[in-house]
């Protein structure tokens, strides 16, 4: 088995190294990826077409809106799948023997530090989300940071303390709301007579011109992504760390 694996790896690796000769050199400004007109269009036109200085945000939520929509759906589906695979009902739980993993007593220093840190982390998450138009950031990053703050509560206190703040059913509801915000903004464009996720018709209901309304709808879309990502990150942690029982946690 190990021999076959080594053989497969050696053959694949040498093939890849052989074809790597044809790939562009490191940081080549004339590589196909940098020279193709799509790249130039994104760089020169995204400010004109969407009025968003951060091209990554503009491409993520506008030019490739479908991609991001379905990535969000994938994350939501992953959360639901983990719920379906791991979650145990109350009757099953009583059948299984209770595992007491010799939990260490709560530590004052750790708890106080985390209690002071969590609000700062959450505020930073909102900043990263809201400032995604002008600096590196956006829905995915802000959502992950927010989810991390909830996981920090669960780690420093107890999983139950974190679940009091955001229960599992509320987390899944929040994730569904995030996907619905994204899909709803797309649907609003259809209702106003344009293509799905073609935001510039939203200037009829937003107090902005077509280009600015793209920028505003990108913020709305990113908010939906942040809802889904933060809720699912926390739900994944809650299920995995307690083997689906949602009691003590790690």
């Amino acid at each position, binding site marked *: 088995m190990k021999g076959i694996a080594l053989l497969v790896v050696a053959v*694949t690796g040498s093939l*890849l190294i052989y074809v790597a000769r044809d790939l562009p050199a490191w940081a080549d400004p004339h590589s196909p*990826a940098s020279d193709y007109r799509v790249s130039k269009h994104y760089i020169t036109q995204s400010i004109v077409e969407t009025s968003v200085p951060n091209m990554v945000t503009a491409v993520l939520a506008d030019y490739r809106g479908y991609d991001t929509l379905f990535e969000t759906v994938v994350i939501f589906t992953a959360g639901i799948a983990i719920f379906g695979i791991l979650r145990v009902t109350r009757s099953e739980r009583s059948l299984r023997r209770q595992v007491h993993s010799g939990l260490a007593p709560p530590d004052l220093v750790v708890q106080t530090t985390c209690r002071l840190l969590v609000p700062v982390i959450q505020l930073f998450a909102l900043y990263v989300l809201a400032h995604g138009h002008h600096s590196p950031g956006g829905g995915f990053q802000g959502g992950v940071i927010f989810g991390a703050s909830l996981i920090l509560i669960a780690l420093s206190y107890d999983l139950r303390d974190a679940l009091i703040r955001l229960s599992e059913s509320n987390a899944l509801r929040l994730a569904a709301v995030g996907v619905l915000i994204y899909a709803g903004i797309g649907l609003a464009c259809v209702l106003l007579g344009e293509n799905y996720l073609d935001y510039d018709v939203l200037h009829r209901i937003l107090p902005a011109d077509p280009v600015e309304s793209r920028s505003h709808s990108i913020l709305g879309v990113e908010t939906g992504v942040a809802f889904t990502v933060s809720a699912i990150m926390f739900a994944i942690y809650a299920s995995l760390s307690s083997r689906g029982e949602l009691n003590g946690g790690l």
Partner: protein
Amino acid sequence: MEELLLARLNYWTYIILMMIGLYAMIGKRNLIKKLIGMSIFQSAIILFFVSIGVKRDATIPILKHEIVHAYHEGAHTEKGSAEAKSTSSELGPAPSEPAGRHGNGSLPAIDPQQYENPLPHVLMLTAIVVGVSTLGVALAIVQSIYRECGSLEEDIILRRMELRDD
């Protein structure tokens, strides 16, 4: 040969990382080790994509502040021309012409050589988060396998499943 190796050294790194991951996925019997291999494989692909986006003498794909300021000022002074521009959304020969609006020469042109290609960043941004959640699904499956079979070793799991079928 040495020249070739130095110019393509980044790809060699990703290929080696990728092969480590592939070997762990095929050769190891422990399910968690297989998942670690999958993660290493994924990291190699992410590194590959990010390195495709690197461009010499270029900065991150966020427009410089002065340019943004000029464009936003321009948008406020002539709102009407923005509408005309946004309708021509297809990929025309736009990159060759300066990126200013018609009839407004004061807008600074954006040089495509100054900024990196944003597309690899976008693709990897979503891939990382999706990778974390799919890894979560994989760990959940491994946990429920452990709950059923009491082991994470592949051969022991297979033997116990056969025993159960008989």
